[in-house]
């Protein structure tokens, strides 16, 4: 295995007094797709939100441990979470283009609010990001229409383009297709596989088939613990842990 791009050591997270993550150790290799699976409330969403320090934005939430990005612990006191989030992009469960911003304004929002105003750069980034998100052909004539006027699947790809515009080496995806139809889902899955050529994708999914289709490695979370982490092909055919087996065959309960 090559050097990891992101390394999590002994990560714990809480919502107020409730512990949501317990002693998580995990490594992500560059240019790979890692799927996080597990039943609702198992902590997998909290986990990805710890990776870009978004978790702590929820009132009462806190996290402890090490998340080492390019040799630096992002939980060091000296680290500005804003800068971390430019390196670790995120796509959410619901498509959430910024309201009353146009398609193009949505894509370049991250750059614009970071102070980049040159029109030529913004245009270039818009085209590159939308192409990367496999959306360019569908929206190139409606760059000035509101982002919210697109279809659900297009909105989600717009959100992906928006996240890619700031060129993060890592992209977190929190159930990005759970609100989409099968066609849009297929497009986004294809997109993830394409993105892997350049960046590292960490994707939370409830869809076992999706995890099996697109990921290289799979991590199974249960009750805030990491139960199993391994090659996707092994996890879905010969899981090591009995609890993993029970979950992926739907025998829980």
């Amino acid at each position, binding site marked *: 295995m090559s050097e990891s791009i992101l390394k999590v050591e002994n990560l714990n997270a809480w919502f107020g007094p409730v512990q949501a993550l317990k002693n998580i150790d995990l490594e992500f290799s560059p240019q790979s797709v890692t799927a996080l699976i597990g039943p609702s409330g198992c902590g997998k969403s909290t986990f990805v939100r710890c990776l870009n320090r978004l978790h702590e934005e929820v009132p009462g939430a806190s996290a402890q441990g090490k998340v080492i990005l390019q040799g630096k612990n992002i939980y060091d006191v000296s680290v500005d979470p804003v800068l971390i989030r430019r390196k670790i992009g995120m796509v959410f469960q619901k498509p959430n283009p910024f309201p009353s911003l146009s398609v193009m304004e949505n894509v370049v929002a991250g750059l614009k609010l970071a102070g980049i105003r040159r029109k030529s750069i913004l245009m270039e980034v818009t085209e590159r990001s939308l192409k990367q998100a496999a959306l360019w052909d569908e929206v190139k004539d409606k760059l000035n229409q509101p982002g919210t006027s697109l279809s659900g699947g297009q909105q989600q790809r717009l959100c992906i383009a928006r996240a890619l515009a700031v060129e993060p080496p890592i992209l977190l995806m929190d159930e990005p297709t759970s609100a989409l139809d099968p066609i849009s889902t297929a497009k986004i899955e294809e997109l993830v596989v394409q993105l892997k050529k350049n960046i590292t994708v960490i994707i939370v999914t409830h869809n*076992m*088939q999706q995890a*099996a289709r697109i990921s290289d490695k799979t991590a199974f979370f249960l009750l805030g613990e990491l139960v199993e982490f391994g090659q996707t092909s092994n996890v*879905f*055919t*010969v*899981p090591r842990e009995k609890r*993993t*087996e029970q979950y*992926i*065959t*739907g*025998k*829980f*309960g």
Partner: protein
Amino acid sequence: MKRSLDKGLGEVKAQLIQMAGYLEEGVKYSTLAWKNRSREMIDKVNQIEAKVNQAHMDVDAACFKLLATQQPLASDLRFLLSVVKINTDLERMADQAVNIANNTEFYLKHPPYPDLADLIKMSEIVRELVKSAIDSFINSDASLAKKVLDDDDQVDQLKDRVFKNALESIKMKTTDVEQGLNVILIARNLERIGDHATNIAEDVIFSISGKDIRHSHTRDKGGPNEK
């Protein structure tokens, strides 16, 4: 929790067990045919082959449907995959039984072979292998399946002996050439049935533990995990 997949898997298993029952009888009749010089048994083998063929298609269709509609994973996926393969093995075994019946047709046209002891021994072991392989599937018994793999060597040894003795008898002219050849063919087909039984045992082990032990020489190292 009872899943809808469980019902489907249970049905497939029941179908396969029934098919295995036919097959066991088929192998038995194919043996009795030459042992007891019984034409009646030859007809029975042919009847059974028709039943096995029908079951073969039914089981395949049921597995196909479950794979398409339930997208089984992990142990469910391994089980269904092994069912598909065992299904094929059973069907091939039925074909071999028919081959033996056909060999017997010719065998019965000639004077009895002088010494059937090894062939009879061989047929008994093969029938035992078949039974054990099927039982290991029914009971998900990995250790029994492993025993099948180990015992298959005896079949091979007996086959070699039958071959050697038959060639010798032909040379010594204690039997005519055709009859010697018939015995060799019967032994060869019996051996094939034994091979299919070991395939089944391997699939059973894969289904239980996820370990693919085909084409490996580590059969004797460490037992597979039991349930």
